[in-house]
């Protein structure tokens, strides 16, 4: 008994899930009377057609659903269940030819379209109308009645009063307007994936920078400092004039610290004194690298004014 109930429940769930899926289908476009520019079906005929669109983000199998142009007969044209091609991918369209010859194949309905008719898409239960499209009685030859998504991100399709040139197998809306943000909302609604990935990338970028500078400069410099006099903290070279060693003793270091302290004591909340303190620190440490050579070189530059060949008078030939 329990097994039976479970099976029934599972079947009911499956049926309801299927019904829920097919409810994402809409009839997005229909052409009742194609003109000479209209597309041909697989048999080379020019007949009316309707376009189904899957507005969900999952695949929908519309096999087993019905199409009809008669409200009193919702099971007029069955879409075969056994065809794998009835699985429609997310945001995809499919054409059904309304040639009046349903026996021609899966994508052929056994009725024809005409202006003033309404075409219905009916769920596989044969009772629930999923969507419908009323073809205006005044629809000219060659034009299509259609629904358009003004904002494709919201997937809200509305019937457009003015018929347009048909756009078979094309989604009636601009998919290019789907932003990365919208996609991210679907894929990562709570933001955890983006956050974890982003934090990892920031850490990686800066960690690589740290590692490189530690390996290339910091480590060798510290090793060299250890090898040298322990009481000195600084030793550096500057300019073309030759080596100039700057050595600060512990006492001088404390003077630097005192200079900073003094400057910061004077500081209220401006940047000026902090800048002075930093400058004093850099100066005493001789860490300012822009040492001016004190030599001004004037280079001769050639121009038309001092070019002798141009200034010589040309001899007549």
């Amino acid at each position: 008994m329990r097994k039976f109930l479970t099976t029934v429940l599972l079947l009911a769930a499956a049926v309801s899930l299927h019904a829920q899926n097919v409810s994402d289908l809409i009839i997005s476009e229909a052409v009742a009377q194609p003109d000479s520019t209209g597309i041909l079906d697989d048999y080379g005929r020019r007949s009316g057609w309707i376009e189904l669109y899957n507005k969900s983000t999952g695949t929908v199998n519309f096999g087993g659903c019905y199409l009809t142009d008669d409200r009193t007969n919702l099971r007029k044209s069955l879409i075969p269940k056994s065809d794998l091609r009835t699985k429609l991918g997310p945001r995809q369209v499919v054409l059904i030819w309304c040639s009046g010859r349903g026996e021609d194949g899966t994508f052929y309905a056994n009725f024809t379209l005409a202006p003033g008719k309404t075409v219905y898409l009916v769920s596989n239960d044969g009772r629930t109308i999923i969507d419908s499209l009323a073809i205006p009685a005044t629809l000219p030859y060659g034009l299509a009645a259609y629904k358009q998504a003004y904002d494709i991100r919201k997937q809200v399709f509305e019937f457009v009063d003015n018929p347009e040139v048909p756009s078979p197998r094309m989604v009636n809306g601009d998919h290019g307007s789907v932003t990365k943000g919208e996609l991210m909302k679907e894929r990562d609604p709570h933001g955890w994936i983006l956050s974890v990935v982003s934090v990892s990338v920031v850490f990686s970028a800066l960690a690589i920078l740290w590692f490189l500078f530690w390996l290339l400069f910091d480590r060798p410099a510290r090793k060299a400092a250890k090898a040298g006099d322990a009481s000195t903290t600084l030793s550096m070279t500057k300019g073309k004039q030759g080596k100039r060693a700057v050595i600060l003793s512990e006492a001088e270091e404390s003077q630097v610290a005192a200079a900073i302290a003094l400057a910061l004591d004077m500081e209220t909340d401006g940047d000026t004194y902090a800048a002075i303190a930093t400058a004093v620190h850099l100066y005493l440490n001789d860490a300012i690298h822009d040492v001016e050579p004190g030599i001004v070189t004037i280079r001769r530059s050639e121009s038309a004014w001092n070019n002798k060949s141009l200034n010589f008078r040309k001899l007549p030939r």
Partner: protein
Amino acid sequence: MEHILESLTQFWEYTGFANCSWQNLVMIGIGLVFITLAIVKEWEPMLLVPIGFGMIVGNIPMFPGLNIGVYEDGSVLNILYQGVKQGWYPPLIFLGIGAMTDFSALISQPRLILIGAAAQMGIFGAYLLALTFGFAPNEAGAIGIIGGADGPTAIFLSSKLAPDLMGAIAVSAYSYMALVPVIQKPIMLLLTTKKERLIHMPTPRVVSKKEKIIFPIVGFLITAFIVPSGLPLLGMLFFGNLLKESGVTKRLANTASGPLIDVVTTLIGLTVGASTQADKFISVKSILIFGLGLLSFVIATTCGVLFVKLMNLFISNPAKKINPLIGNAGVSAVPDSARVSETVGREIDPTNHLLMHAMGPNVAGVIGSAVAAGILLSFLG
């Protein structure tokens, strides 16, 4: 007589008095508060004076259609505003920042770079919270960047991700940058013990000219290859720094760090302020942005301080321990957050100078926030 009355009526309709709403007055009041804070308290005057005055300019009630408003195509303000809207100004400011920044504090202690990365968690904390409050992912990303404590980056990213929220985000970012001492100090004291605050850090070594020249080149290559979408900001930052450190382009560096950045700062401040027109600014969203911005600063500071404590767990040598008071400086509010480290450190030990140490994570924060902005742009832009 009738004609005169008609003309006067027509003139009256064009005046600010006839078109004034309470929202305009509120925004003008906020602008005046900004100017007062900048002049009296000297809180970020370079930014708050232009922004405050811009708010007043943008909220002068006027008859629509005169082609003078910041949102009216072709008006003077609108043309100047394009630099914000299209994101031209922030990279130019980064050029100036690069030309002003001395990365030697960072190069001498490369391990401090990681603190700059940890503090960027404020950005993503705020991003998660903004999503919870119902903001769209692109809006949440733009709001989150407030936690980077970097005005130009916030403007750059919000102009790309959520232009409608840019005014609120920019004002929020700059306001909290001005309030860094008020926000950060209690968190630092709360999260550290007296013993930790007394840690004296070793004197940083002197950095050679070669290292200073190599840093912007290597730094740019690494970060730009990892996050190419951060190119406008990272490229300009490191380019400006190379101009400074190369020593052969002093004039260019001086221009970038002086007149150029001054001009751009003036324009960006004024136009961002002017973009806060009452009808676009006063909303529940703006209030939420201010709240989330504050939280992002709190999260960033907390993460920075806690990360230093975490690092200390792995440092066995007591002489090499890091004072957690420099953790707050991982946010890129240069040099305010580093100064907070210095003043809080000296409150407990007047001989403990943390300024030079704090400048390391501080400038790392500038790089980190630009990288984070690039990542958000690549995911959400």
